[in-house]
């Protein structure tokens, strides 16, 4: 059963526990160059999750909201489909995981991701691509991701994705203050991380113009022709080879006939 996390943005108090838990569990460094919380927090090779403070308006009132950002773990990840060395894979539990041993550093995954998640160790001699793994090892052991386990405000709920979806739907339908949209239900064909909010997602910095069609499908529609094109091309060339060979044989026979005759 595919797992997921439901983020209720109205519950987040911006304590940053999730960010610290991620650093602790994954042994990530605290970098002084990139902020991991506050207004200008950004993901990087050592920040797999960040919490952004967004000052926005709700009606006439100015409000603060905190937005946790990390890999959304797409149901059909574009990064994995772009990865020819199979370093990025979707596990059956839900996480899209990255195997450092297999990565060749081509960074196609970074180009493919619609949410701009995978980051690169630009400062290393032998750099790797880095991103949230949704603590796949913990999930494998039946635990929740580290960030979810430490949240003191109940903003993060871990569970089966389809259960979370129905929970989210129930919440937004029973409370008029919520926006009637579950971010991640359909974006890029659906993601394991789902968000609900009382402020429009555009205002919180979410990319909202993302197709609902799984991104690998675009490439698959063309790449699925590869066997046919390959075989066809082979058949054509073989045919031409056989034709040419036969023509040359006939030409040789004619020539020897003439010579003998």
């Amino acid at each position: 059963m595919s797992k997921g996390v439901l983020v209720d943005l109205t519950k987040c108090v911006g304590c940053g526990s999730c960010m610290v838990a991620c650093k602790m569990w994954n042994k990530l460094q605290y970098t002084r160059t990139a902020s991991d919380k506050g207004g200008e927090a950004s993901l990087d090779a050592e920040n797999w999750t960040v919490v952004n403070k967004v000052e926005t308006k709700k009606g006439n009132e100015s409000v603060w909201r905190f937005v946790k950002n990390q890999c959304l773990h797409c149901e059909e990840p574009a990064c994995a489909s772009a990865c020819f060395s199979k370093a990025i894979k979707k596990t059956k539990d839900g996480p899209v995981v990255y195997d450092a041993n297999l990565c060749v550093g081509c960074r196609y995954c970074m180009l493919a991701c619609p949410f701009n998640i995978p980051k690169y160790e630009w400062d290393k001699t032998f750099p790797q691509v880095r991103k949230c793994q949704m603590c796949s090892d913990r999930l494998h052991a039946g635990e929740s991701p580290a960030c979810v386990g430490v949240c003191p405000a109940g903003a993060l709920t871990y569970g089966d994705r389809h259960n979370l979806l129905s929970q989210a739907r129930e919440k937004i339908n029973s409370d008029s203050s919520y926006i009637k949209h579950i971010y991640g239900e359909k974006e890029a064909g659906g993601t394991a991380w789902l968000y609900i909010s009382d402020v429009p997602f555009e205002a919180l910095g979410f990319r909202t113009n993302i197709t609902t069609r799984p991104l690998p499908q675009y490439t698959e529609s063309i790449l699925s022709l590869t066997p046919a094109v390959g075989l066809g091309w082979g058949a054509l060339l073989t045919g031409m080879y056989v034709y040419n060979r036969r023509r040359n044989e006939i030409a040789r026979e004619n020539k020897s006939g003439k010579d003998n005759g």
Partner: protein
Amino acid sequence: MDDRVKDDELRLEKQVTRRSFLRMMGGLGLAGITVSLAGCGASTVAGQAGGDGWLPQQYQGRGAWPAQVRGRVPITPDNPSIVRDDEKCILCGQCLEVCKNIQSVFGHYGLPLADEMVCVNCGQCALWCPTAAITERDDTQKVLQALQDPDKHVVVQTAPATRVALGEEFGLAPGTWVMGQQVAALKRLGFDAVFDTNFSADLTIMEEATELIKRIKGDINKPLPQFTSCSPGWVKFCEYFYPDLLPHMSSCKSPQQMLGALVKTYYAKMKNINPENIVSVSIMPCTAKKFEVQRPEMNSSAHYWNKQNMRDMDAVLTTRELARLIKQQGIDLNKLPEQNYDPLLGKSTGGAIIFGATGGVMEAAVRSAYYFITQQQPPANLLTLTPVRGLEGVKEAAVDVPGVGTVKVAVCHGMSNGRQVLEAVRKGNAPWHFVEFMCCPGGCISGGGQPRSAVPPSDEVRMQRINSLYQADARMQWRESHENSEVLALYQNFLEHPMSELAEELLHTSYTDRGKKAKQLTA
């Protein structure tokens, strides 16, 4: 023999020729590429990035298992009282434990947040943090700069509770009395005048007891019970969670702010110093004081002189910060001779000393209120009002005052205890005339800026500090605030009488309704 060795060497050379080595390596490389392209080796979790760190034990259960102690408190980077170093945070949950269960702040407000993080600035999280990830905002450099500026007249005041705790930073037992050494250290640091917040604690009693009597007699239209207003953490708590009860709050400023206003008016006048050149610093057991000095209304001296941009207080150092400053300057507190506070704003009574302990403000107020009403010295039992002493969460006492009848008082410390009293007042079930609230458990002696002599803070350390204060009170020649000769001189020369027009302007304040910032929890 030699021939055989040569043969062996030749054979070895033949076995690994350059060509065969390259062929072997090429083959291995091709095999490796094939294996990795096929995705073999990624079948286990072990090859994946991340997951090689740790988390505290409470987070190791199954996802759905509730951890009893979880996460940490939210702190904005611009919090005037406390800062946090994420690198030191181990998510032990102690800050949240004290904030949620002892102070009843976190989790006691509705979400989503309005446009601020609800924090009463008490700093108990800093006191409980075992790794010192949360600390007070360090203002020592600001104070050092002022001390090094020859144009500035730098004045300092020390709170009642710092003199029984500062020594702990220098290896002395909890509760060791270091009042004289503290004054000496401050003088060596270069402060131009060292005053005692105890002086304005006595002054607070003069104003607060007068206000209480006026409420009881119906001379002013304000409800009973009257709440004390010395603890800025408590004041902000009330503004957030019980804004409807703010009329109960005494209008008196805290002793720190009273002295701050007087330093830049009364003291400046008496010493003929330009108030704009005065830098007023305080040594406090409390981190909420750092918030209090920034409250926009705390600029009475600016109004008095009609000069904008002047603040009554310029900087607050916690006990820990003072200890740091003393150590940085290479001063050994233990070896200092005792010195006295400077005159004009430096004298105090036993009533002021016990301000640092839970129940102290109330006990001191009762002593003076009794005198104001009866014009007689209070009986001996009022000088040792045992029912309001000790560390019980909510304490009550009843005092017979001739001419008024029985005056009922209550004392609480730690805001979860405070809630019990506040709920009773809200429901109209409050029999009391006067209630003392202290934000921190044990009162100021265990404030958020005090030395971390036990982590988490223990009642044993609290009691040692409290006992030291009560012993000092018992030793004092004057034990009632209205006996303080410097306070009486202040009224005679400047303020005229308690709650005079000038006293109202300089020593009293009003409060802010923050109810919208901490929304009521809905079921």
